[in-house]
C-alpha cells in the first residue's frame, strides 16, 4: 500500500518539541563569534523631514562600536530603476521615484522606518544607546487611510505628483447592470492586519575573503541571495544564504527586507560579523502588514437568484512604499468572480501610498480579499431578493461540466465540482436544522441569536508555477537518500512530505531519507515557499527526480541481475529490485547504489512543467451573537477544502487548522489601527488581538479530493485556503444572525463594540 494519503506523523516534531529548533537568534556558530549586535533607530513620526542626526552621545555610550546612517552608505549603488511597464502586476518593489531606501536619508514616511543602526558589543547596550541618537524631525502632515491618499493634499513622494503609483483596469460601465431586477452596491473594508509570525525577523552576516554569508529568517533563501547580491553589488556566487529553522512567515518573509540588507552592509563596513533579531514591538511596525483594501462592490441579477453582473473596484493601501502591494489587487481582480459563472465582470484597482507600514503578502495575498468581496456581495444580493444564500450560491456556481473554465479576469480554472463542495458542507452541518433553530430563536426573541454564514471560494495557487522549483535526489551506497530542495520549509512539514514522496516512488523508508533546504551553497537554485506552491511544484520536482533515479537504478540492477531492463521490477513496498517472476533474487537499494557510477544514483531537476491550480471549497460558520453586548462566539466551523490529491492528510489538516484560525481572527479580532497622525495604536500584542484557542471551536474538516492534471501529483495548494474561506464565512454568519433586525453589513473586525453599534444603528463606535 502506498504511503501517500496515510496519516504519517511529522518527522520534524521530535526535534522541534524536545531539543528545540535553532533559529537565527539562537545560532552559536563559530563564524558569528564576536558579532556586533545591531539595534535600529526607528522613526517615531509618520511623516517628517529629517533635518539632522546627532549620534555623538550614542557613540560615547558603553559598548557602542558604531552608529551608522544613510550618509555612511557611500559604497552602495543607486536604487534600482522602475521595472518595465511600471510594475503593477509584478511582485517587486517599484523603484524609481518610489524607491525605498535602506536607511531613511532626508525623509521618513512611517512610524518604524529605520533611520540609523547602532552596533554594540552587547545586545542590551544597543537599546540603551539607540535612545541617545538624536534625530531632528520637521513634521509633515501625515497621510493616513486611502481617502487621504487619493485626496492628494499631501504627497509622500512630491516628485511623482501623486499618491497613486498604479492605476489599472477599465472605466466603470453601468451598462453591464442593464436587465438586472436588483442591483446592490456597497463600500466595504478589508482591514489591514499584521502577520505576527512566532519568530520575528532576524538576520546575521559575516564576510570572509570578499564573500558574504548571511543567515536569514526567510521563506526563500535563493531569492534572498539574489536580492542581497544585487543591492550590495556582488556576484550571486559571492553570497551564501543560510536559513536555519524559521518560525513562520505567512508571506511577510518572502525575500529580504531592508533591515536585513543593512545588517549585511554593516558587517562589511565594520569588518566583523553583525547580528540582529527584532523585538515584537519592532515587528508590529516594521514587518510588512497584509490586506488593507477598500473595495466598492456592485452586484446585479434576477429575482430568481441568477447573478448577471459584478463589478469590483479596489483601492490598495500600499503603506509608505509600494513593495509587492501592486501585485495584491492584481490577484484580487483576477479572482474577482470567485467560483461563480457571471456573464459580466468588471474590475479596476488603484494602489495608493500612505504614511503607514508598507503592506505586502499575507496568507492568501490578494485572494482572500477577492473572496471576501464576492462572498459579501452574494449575501447582499441574496438578502435583497429574499432568497436563501445557499440557494443563490448553488444557482450561480460554475457547473462541473464547464472545466477548464476561463474567467473574465484571465484565470483558467483547472478542475472542480463547486456545488458538490457546497452540498457536502450543508449536509454535514445540518443546514436545515440550523435554519430551524435560528427561526426558533428569532421567534422567541432570544438575547443570543444564531447566525449561519457561507463562503464558497476558488483560489489560485502556484500562480508563478512557470518559475519552477528544484530538487536534487541522491541515493547513497548505504541505501539512504538525501533530498536537496529549493523549496523553503518554515513550519509546513516539507521534510515529512518530501520523504513520503521518495518512499512512495522508490520504497526507501522515510526514516532513511534526509531532506536539506535553505543553504545556497548546497542548493544554488531554488524558488522558495509562498503562494501555496511547495507541494505542487517543489514536491513534483522531488517526484520527477525520484522517477529519474528509479530508471537509473533499473539500469544498474539489470546489469547486476543479468536481466533486461524491461524485466526489472521495483517492489516499492519493500524497496527491493528483482526480475519479474523471481522475487527471491532481489537487490536492495544499498546494493544497487554501491554499484552505480562514481556519482552514485543522483538526479537534479528544475521542474517547470506545472501550471497554476485552483483549489476550491465551501466554509460554513455557525455563530452566536449576544444582542445585548455585541459579543460573537463561533460555535462551529465546517469546511470542504478541496486541494486535489492529498499526500499527507496530517499536514493538510494542519494547514487548514492554522488558516481557519487566522481567518476567524481577521473576521472577529485583528486590525492594525493608526490614529490621525499615523501613530500605530496597536503596537503591542495587548492591543493587537491575535486569536487564541479559547476563542475557537474544534473545526469540522470534511474530506474531498478532485485531482488536478496540472502536475504529476494531482495536488493543488492548501496553505492559504483556510484563511481565504474562513473570513467571509464568519463575517456572513454574524451579519446573518442580525439580518432580521435589518443589518446588512458590518466591516471587519466584528468586535463587540462594532456589532453592538450595528445592532443599535448607531454606526461604528470606536
Amino acid at each position, binding site marked *: 500500500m502506498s504511503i501517500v494519503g496515510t496519516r504519517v506523523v511529522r518527522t520534524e516534531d521530535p526535534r522541534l518539541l524536545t531539543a528545540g529548533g535553532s533559529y537565527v537568534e539562537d545560532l552559536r556558530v563559530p563564524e558569528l563569534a564576536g558579532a556586533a549586535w545591531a539595534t535600529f533607530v526607528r522613526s517615531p513620526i509618520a511623516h517628517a523631514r529629517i533635518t539632522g542626526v546627532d549620534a555623538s552621545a550614542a557613540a560615547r555610550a558603553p559598548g557602542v562600536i558604531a552608529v551608522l546612517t544613510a550618509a555612511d552608505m557611500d559604497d552602495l549603488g543607486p536604487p534600482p530603476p522602475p521595472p518595465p511597464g511600471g510594475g503593477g502586476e509584478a511582485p517587486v518593489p517599484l523603484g524609481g521615484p518610489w524607491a525605498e531606501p535602506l536607511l531613511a536619508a532626508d525623509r521618513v514616511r512611517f512610524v518604524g522606518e529605520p533611520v540609523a543602526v547602532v552596533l554594540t558589543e552587547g545586545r542590551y547596550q544597543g537599546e540603551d544607546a539607540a535612545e541617545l541618537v538624536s534625530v531632528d524631525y520637521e513634521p509633515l502632515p501625515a497621510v493616513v487611510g486611502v481617502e487621504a491618499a487619493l485626496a492628494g493634499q499631501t504627497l509622500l513622494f512630491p516628485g511623482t505628483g501623486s499618491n497613486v503609483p498604479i492605476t489599472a483596469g477599465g472605466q466603470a460601465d453601468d451598462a453591464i447592470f442593464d436587465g438586472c431586477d436588483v442591483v446592490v452596491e456597497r463600500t466595504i473594508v478589508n482591514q489591514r492586519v499584521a502577520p505576527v509570525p512566532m519568530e520575528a525577523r532576524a538576520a546575521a552576516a559575516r564576510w570572509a575573503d570578499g564573500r558574504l554569508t548571511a543567515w536569514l529568517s526567510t521563506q526563500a533563501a535563493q531569492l534572498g541571495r539574489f536580492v542581497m547580491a544585487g543591492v550590495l553589488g556582488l556576484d550571486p556566487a559571492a553570497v551564501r544564504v543560510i536559513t536555519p529553522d524559521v518560525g513562520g512567515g505567512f508571506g511577510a518573509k518572502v525575500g529580504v527586507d531592508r533591515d536585513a540588507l543593512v545588517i549585511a552592509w554593516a558587517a562589511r563596513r565594520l569588518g566583523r560579523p553583525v547580528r540582529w533579531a527584532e523585538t*515584537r*514591538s519592532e515587528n508590529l511596525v516594521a514587518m510588512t502588514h497584509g490586506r488593507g483594501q477598500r473595495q466598492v462592490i456592485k452586484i446585479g441579477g434576477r429575482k430568481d437568484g441568477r447573478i448577471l453582473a459584478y463589478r469590483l473596484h479596489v483601492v490598495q493601501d500600499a503603506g509608505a512604499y509600494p513593495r509587492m502591494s501592486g501585485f495584491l489587487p492584481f490577484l484580487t481582480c483576477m479572482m474577482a468572480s470567485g467560483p461563480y459563472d457571471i456573464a459580466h465582470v468588471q474590475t479596476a484597482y488603484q494602489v495608493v501610498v500612505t504614511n503607514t507600514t508598507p503592506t505586502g503578502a499575507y496568507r492568501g495575498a490578494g485572494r482572500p480579499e477577492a473572496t471576501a468581496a464576492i462572498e459579501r456581495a452574494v449575501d447582499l444580493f441574496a438578502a435583497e431578493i429574499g432568497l436563501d444564500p445557499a440557494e443563490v450560491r448553488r444557482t450561480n456556481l460554475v457547473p462541473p461540466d464547464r472545466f477548464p473554465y476561463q474567467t473574465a479576469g484571465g484565470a483558467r480554472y483547472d478542475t472542480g465540482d463547486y456545488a458538490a463542495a457546497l452540498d457536502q458542507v450543508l449536509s454535514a452541518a445540518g443546514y436545515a436544522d440550523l435554519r430551524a433553530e435560528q427561526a426558533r430563536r428569532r421567534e422567541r426573541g432570544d438575547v443570543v441569536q444564531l447566525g449561519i454564514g457561507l463562503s464558497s471560494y476558488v483560489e489560485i495557487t502556484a500562480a508563478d508555477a512557470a518559475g519552477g522549483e528544484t530538487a536534487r535526489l541522491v541515493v547513497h551506497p548505504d541505501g539512504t537518500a538525501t533530498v536537496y530542495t529549493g523549496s523553503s520549509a518554515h513550519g509546513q512539514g516539507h521534510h515529512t512530505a518530501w520523504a513520503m514522496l521518495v518512499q512512495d516512488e522508490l520504497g526507501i523508508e522515510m526514516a532513511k531519507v534526509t531532506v536539506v533546504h535553505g543553504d545556497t551553497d548546497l542548493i544554488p537554485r531554488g524558488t522558495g515557499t509562498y503562494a501555496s506552491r511547495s507541494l505542487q511544484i517543489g514536491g513534483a520536482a522531488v517526484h520527477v527526480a525520484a522517477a529519474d533515479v528509479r530508471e537509473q537504478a533499473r539500469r544498474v540492477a539489470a546489469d547486476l541481475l543479468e536481466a533486461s531492463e524491461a524485466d526489472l521490477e521495483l517492489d516499492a513496498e519493500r524497496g527491493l529490485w528483482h526480475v519479474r517472476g523471481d522475487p527471491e533474487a532481489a537487490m536492495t537499494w544499498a546494493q544497487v547504489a554501491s554499484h552505480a557510477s562514481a556519482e552514485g544514483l543522483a538526479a537534479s531537476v528544475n521542474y517547470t512543467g506545472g501550471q497554476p491550480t485552483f483549489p476550491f471549497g465551501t466554509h460554513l460558520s455557525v455563530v452566536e451573537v449576544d444582542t445585548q453586548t455585541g*459579543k460573537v462566539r463561533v460555535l462551529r466551523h465546517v469546511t470542504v477544502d478541496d486541494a486535489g490529491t492529498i499526500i499527507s492528510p496530517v499536514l493538510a489538516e494542519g494547514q487548514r487548522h492554522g488558516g481557519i484560525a487566522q481567518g476567524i481572527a481577521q473576521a472577529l479580532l485583528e486590525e492594525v489601527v493608526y490614529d490621525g497622525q499615523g501613530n500605530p495604536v*496597536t503596537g503591542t500584542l495587548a492591543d493587537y488581538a491575535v*486569536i487564541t484557542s*479559547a476563542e475557537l471551536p474544534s473545526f469540522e474538516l470534511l474530506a474531498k479530493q478532485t485531482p488536478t492534471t496540472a502536475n504529476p501529483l494531482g495536488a493543488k495548494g492548501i496553505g492559504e485556503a483556510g484563511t481565504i474561506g474562513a473570513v467571509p464565512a464568519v463575517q456572513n454568519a454574524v451579519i446573518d444572525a442580525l439580518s432580521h433586525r435589518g443589518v446588512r453589513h458590518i466591516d471587519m473586525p466584528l468586535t*463587540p*463594540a462594532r456589532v*453592538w453599534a450595528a445592532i443599535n444603528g448607531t454606526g461604528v463606535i470606536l
Partner: protein
Amino acid sequence: MIPAPFTYRRAATVDEAVTLAARGGEDVKFLAGGHSLLPLMKLRLVVPPELVDIGGIGELSHISEADGHVRVGALATHDQVAGSALLRRELPLLAHAAGRVGDPQVRHRGTIGGSLAHADPAADLPAVALALGATLVTRGPSGTREIAAGDFFTGLFETVLEPGELLAEIRFPKAGPSGWSFQKFTKRGIDWAIVGVAVAGDRVALVNMGPTPLRARAVEDALASGAAPDEAAARAAEGTSAPEDLNGSRAYREHLARVLVGRALGEARSRR
C-alpha cells in the same frame, strides 16, 4: 523590549524588603510576580532605578482563617487563590475571579498583592476587593497600616501606598450566605476586561469604568431602597467615567455596565 538598566536587590524577609526599599529611595519598585511591572519596563514606560525582589519571601503566600476573616498573603498567586479550598468555600467570588485573570502563565506568576498595588482599573481583583470589603495590611518604614480597600485606590495606577511601603496581606471578612457573581466582558479569554462587574451580597463593584475600581453606589442604593434588580442595574453607569479606547466608547462601556450589572445581580440572586 529591553528594560533600561536598573539595580536589582532581593529580599528574604519583609523587614529586609522594607529596609532595602528605604535605602533605595523614592523610585524603588517592589517586584513580585512581575507580570505587570516587567512588561512596562520592557516598553520603557516605567524606568525604575532599583527593584527590590520580594518574590522569595516565604512568609507572604499564606491563605488562612482567623477571627471571622480570611487572610491572604500578598504573594499568593492567582492560581493559588483560584485553587484554594478555603477560598472556594468562604470567598467563592475571589477564587473565581482569580481564575479569570490573564492566562495560565500570568496566574502562576502574578500575585494578588501585585495586582492590588499596581492599581490598574482594568484589572479584576481591585474591584473584587472593593466588593468584598477587603482590608489591606501594609508594612513600611513607619510601621504597619490597615487600609480599607475603599480608601486604597486613589487614581490611575495610584494608591495610598507611600514610597517604600509594602502591601503584605489582604484580609477579607467571610462573605456569609449572600449571593455573588463576577462578570468579565472581554474580546478574548486572555484580555483585560472591557468592563467587569463583581457582586457580593449587596455590594456591587465595577472594573474599568473609571480611573480606579468603583463601587456602583447608585445601584447599591437602589437595591437598598427595594428596587428590582433590572431597575437597579439601569443606574450602573451613574458616577462612572469610563475610558475610551480601541475596545469601545464611553457610551458603549456605560451600556455594558448596565447589562452586566443586570446579569450579575440575577446570577447573584440565583446563588443565595
